[in-house]
């Protein structure tokens, strides 16, 4: 067993520098790497390019990095659930590259899987395809999309072990598995770091080979963005 464990979030983020490109898992506020984000806030690294489906809310998730103007560019599919984001975007302080959600996921997965690029039908004939190579296959048009290149990927899992094996829960899985191994260094934080051998090898979602560092996360808030309920009848 190759041990990927680091003692804490400080060790996990060693080497993060200004102007790096970071991938961050999560959809909305679900499955975001809360500990890594808190540490990035403390490190005060700036000029970051962040690849993440969303940009958090004003006081949580990537919104915390936006408050401190640490992000230079966001690559996302859906943003603007927070006022500071909107202000920085409209004033030109923040660069935003909007990417279709499936393309965003696949640009991560392509990096993970060693594909330099792939063809997708998403965005053909729209401004997303402007300046990009297009090609016809079986009578349908596709757009060539390159894989992402990132320095760090920060993912969050439900359970993990020292070997870096990960198990996700519910829809908190989302982009997290696709970002594992898609950057030079992948850092996984887990709600529960279990002893090696405790996870059933049949039920591991991401094998440890894709992970460089893993640590036991702390104080998860797991905030709910839209609390919707139904009445008991």
């Amino acid at each position, binding site marked *: 067993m190759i041990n990927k464990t680091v003692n804490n979030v400080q060790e996990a983020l060693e080497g993060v520098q200004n102007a790096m490109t970071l991938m961050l898992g999560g959809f909305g506020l679900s499955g975001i790497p809360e500990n890594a984000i808190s540490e990035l806030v403390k490190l005060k690294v700036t000029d970051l390019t962040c690849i993440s489906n969303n940009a958090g809310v004003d006081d949580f998730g990537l919104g915390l990095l936006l408050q401190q103007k640490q992000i230079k560019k966001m690559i996302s599919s859906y943003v603007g659930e927070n006022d500071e984001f909107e202000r920085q975007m409209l004033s030109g302080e923040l660069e935003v590259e909007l990417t279709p959600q499936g393309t965003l996921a696949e640009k991560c997965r392509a990096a993970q899987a060693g594909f330099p690029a792939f063809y997708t039908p998403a965005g053909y004939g729209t401004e997303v395809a402007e300046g990009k190579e297009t090609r016809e296959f079986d009578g349908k048009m596709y757009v060539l999309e390159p894989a992402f290149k990132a320095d760090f990927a920060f993912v969050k899992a439900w359970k993990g072990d020292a070997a870096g094996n990960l198990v996700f829960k519910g829809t*908190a899985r989302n982009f997290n598995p696709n970002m594992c191994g898609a950057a030079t260094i992948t850092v996984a934080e887990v709600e529960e770091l279990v002893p090696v051998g405790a996870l059933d090898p049949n039920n591991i979602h991401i094998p440890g080979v894709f992970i460089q560092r893993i640590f036991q996360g702390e104080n998860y808030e797991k905030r709910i963005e*839209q609390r919707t309920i139904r009445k008991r009848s």
Partner: protein
Amino acid sequence: MLDKNGIAKRIAQEVQNGFYVNLGIGIPTLVANYVREDIEVEFQSENGVLGMGPFPFEGEEDADLINAGKQTITALPGASFFDSSMSFSMIRGKHIHLTILGAMEVAENGDIANWKIPGKMVKGMGGAMDLVASADNIIVAMMHTNKRGESKILKKCSLPLTGVGCVTKVVTNLAVLEVRNNAFHLLERAPGVSLEDIQKATEGTLVVNGEIPEMCI
């Protein structure tokens, strides 16, 4: 004339036994409430769940279980969770039978615009571009006209496109329209709506063949 729930009710009639269905945000979400109970249908939410159930009871909300609108949901027996790449493999690979989404504009060639108004805050396309580029069966749920009474059923979209030549059917507060051969073919009228009302509210080419029945909802 139909309200939002009426549109959802009419669209629910398009959902067939054995269908995997992706519902967009807004009116499409309401469709789930009106699907016949004697058929088997599974709803996909592109953030990573198939077999999505209704909202949870109070106290049973789970931050790890949300839909694409970031609302708390439940998962039905037989449900599955998966990552974003696999979710869009289902969509891009045409394993999802029906996509229902909202639109700001639809054109007679099947173009759809629903993600961006120039000059206004752009929030992004989310999964809409992947959905419309991939699905064979795309139904749009929308109001026939905007707040100023101008048609949203057009010859050509004026807003930035989400996808080209993809919409198969449109259900509005006034009518059911099939989109083919560069025209809107009128299939049904909403209750109490005349052919003339529909013609007046439609800027795009409208094909009317014979007597147009009123919707049964």
